[in-house]
């Protein structure tokens, strides 16, 4: 713990992150504390395991997809800059009013970039298209395994809870692959405009044009 003082952020770094992400000085120092407390290996980067140690994230059905958003293609570690760049997508948009600079590139928390974050959660193979298969897989993540499959798996692993599992089978919700399949078909049908049976980013934006993205994909800071 005594070594923390030596890993304080340098003033120049804070300025750079401020310019790139739009976070304020105190927000950056607070998030840096958070970053260092998650970094159990104390090597200045976070791995996927560091994220999975957060219980509330581990129980999120799309937890793994969200963790993936922090890691660029093929990488296993994310440093503080990358961490902040991803978190910046969730800054509220009103905060941008103060720094209106017409020549600057689009801020990370613009409506389009927030939608891009969500789009990438669906686009498993990063080919800029959401195919029927990818949609099905994400749907399956959100509703959980078919009840019977999960019970069988659990029975194979540990038998003590057998009775309570059986009871739960009777009250649980079971969504079959066919049901999910028809949901996926309907969704693609409504969104697809160029007939390629998948959803591109522009089609995605069109489908969600009325949704209040600015509010639903923003996290309010207390300071």
């Amino acid at each position, binding site marked *: *713990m*005594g070594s*923390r*003082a030596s890993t*304080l*952020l340098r*003033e120049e770094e804070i300025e750079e992150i401020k310019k790139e992400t739009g976070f304020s000085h105190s*927000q950056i*120092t*607070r*998030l840096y*504390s*958070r970053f260092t*407390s*998650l970094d159990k290996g104390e090597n200045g980067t976070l791995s996927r395991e560091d994220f999975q*140690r*957060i*219980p*509330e*994230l*581990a*129980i*999120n*059905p*799309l*937890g793994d997809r*969200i963790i993936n958003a922090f890691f660029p293609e093929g990488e296993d570690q994310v440093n503080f800059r990358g961490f902040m760049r991803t*978190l910046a997508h*969730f800054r509220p948009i009103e905060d941008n009013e103060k720094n209106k600079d017409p020549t600057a590139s689009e801020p990370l928390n613009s409506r389009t970039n927030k939608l891009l*974050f*969500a789009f990438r*959660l*669906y686009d498993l193979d990063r080919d800029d298209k959401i195919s029927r298969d990818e949609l099905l897989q*994400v*749907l399956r993540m*959100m*509703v*959980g395994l078919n009840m019977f499959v*999960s019970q069988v798996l659990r029975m194979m692993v540990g038998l003590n809870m057998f009775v309570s599992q059986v009871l739960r089978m009777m009250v*649980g*919700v079971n*969504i079959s692959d066919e*049901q999910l399949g028809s*949901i996926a078909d309907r*969704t693609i049908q409504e*969104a697809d405009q160029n007939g390629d049976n998948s*959803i591109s980013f522009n089609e*995605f934006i069109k*489908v*969600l044009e*009325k*949704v*209040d993205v600015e509010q*639903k*994909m923003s*996290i*309010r*800071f*207390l*300071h």
Partner: protein
Amino acid sequence: MVLFLDFNPFDNLLCILLGISFTVWFTLLLVFIIVPAIFGVSFGIRQLYMKTLLKIFEWATRRIERGAKDKNHPLHKPYSNAIIAKEPTSLEEEIKEIRRSGSNRDLDSASEFEMSDIFYFCRRGVESIMDDEVTKRFSAEELESWNLLTRSNYNFQHISLRLTVLWGLGVVIRYGFLLPLRVTLAFTGVGLLVVLTSIIGFLPNGRTKNFLSEKVHLMCYRICVRALTAIITYHDSENKPKNGGICVANHTSPIDVIILASDGCYAMVGQIHGGLMGVIQKSMVKACPHIWFERSEVKDRHLVAKRLSDHVEDKTKLPILIFPEGTCINNTSVMMFKKGSFEIGSTVYPVAIKYDPRFGDAFWNSSQFGMVSYLLRMMSSWAIVCSVWYLPPMSREEGEDAVQFANRVKAAIARQGGLVDLLWDGGLKRGKVKDTFKEEQQKLYSKMLVGTQEDRSRS
């Protein structure tokens, strides 16, 4: 003449000085610390000590803040304060809201799935990355003001000469004076405990033995309390646990045991260790019945429950002391209580323990420090200050199962101690969260998809 010159007068002087200082030292120790411990009285020295220290800490903090502002250094902010505002809305409410805002259809035909549903999980996930309720409970609480211990400060750089001198003085006092004093006391306390309980063990069972055992235990724990310079305030002592009951408390460190046992007699529960701990445990059980388990027996829940209920039924035996969290938490929250002790069916006496971290953080981070280095840290802090509240006894009510009873007790303890009441398991310190929680979320979402299908088929 030659003989006279060989004899160095300074050696003699040195010996005399050493002799005198040792005598003075031990007399002071005896008069001010050990004798009061035996009789359970206090001179109030520790209270005065505490007040003086507080004033110094406030000055030190103000000095650091001023220094940081002058030099324009960023101050490390304690992150245990909330960073973000979390909406308490449920999964169902939020997803419906998102759908409503984006719907171009009329509201009667509710859709079963929208691509925007993912926003809910996105935001919740990123919120938990920025700030979650669990991971911060397993590391020591960060302080707003500095207490002159480098271990609890992240802003300490050379700000002013006066501050550094004060800190240096603090180091000298703590390690040069307080630490040796406390270590001596600790050895005295533990040594007396082992020796006296073994002697009492030879007496036949009866009233005399119990009486003496009580006195010996209390005296030795009080010496240990002084060995840590623990300043404890007991509240509501009329609710102190009685024979045949179970005392439950929130767990922050092994010191909890010493704190509670110096004010009342309990039967301890635990695993038999080897080494010094084992010696202490074996001699303690000679004087009065404690419940020690072999390592192999700990896993057998029925055996544990049986021994506990047998003990509780015998009204001559002391109340059992149990920490249902099962692990040390950092004293900002109370985590899930394991239901084992609440199934036994006797009266439960809840106790809330709240430490004041300004004088020395008592939380034992067992992944960071072993027991010995932890104790050394404790003995080289300024003091351990805490409050103990004895809550009114509780019993399991009609129609309440062990888990609900445990949660009720936990809520009472959390409320009294000003701690956050969490449902999460303290075992998450080391282990992974169970899949069942994720499945609950998935079930909730599934109901949203399927539920609307049923409406459709009806219409």
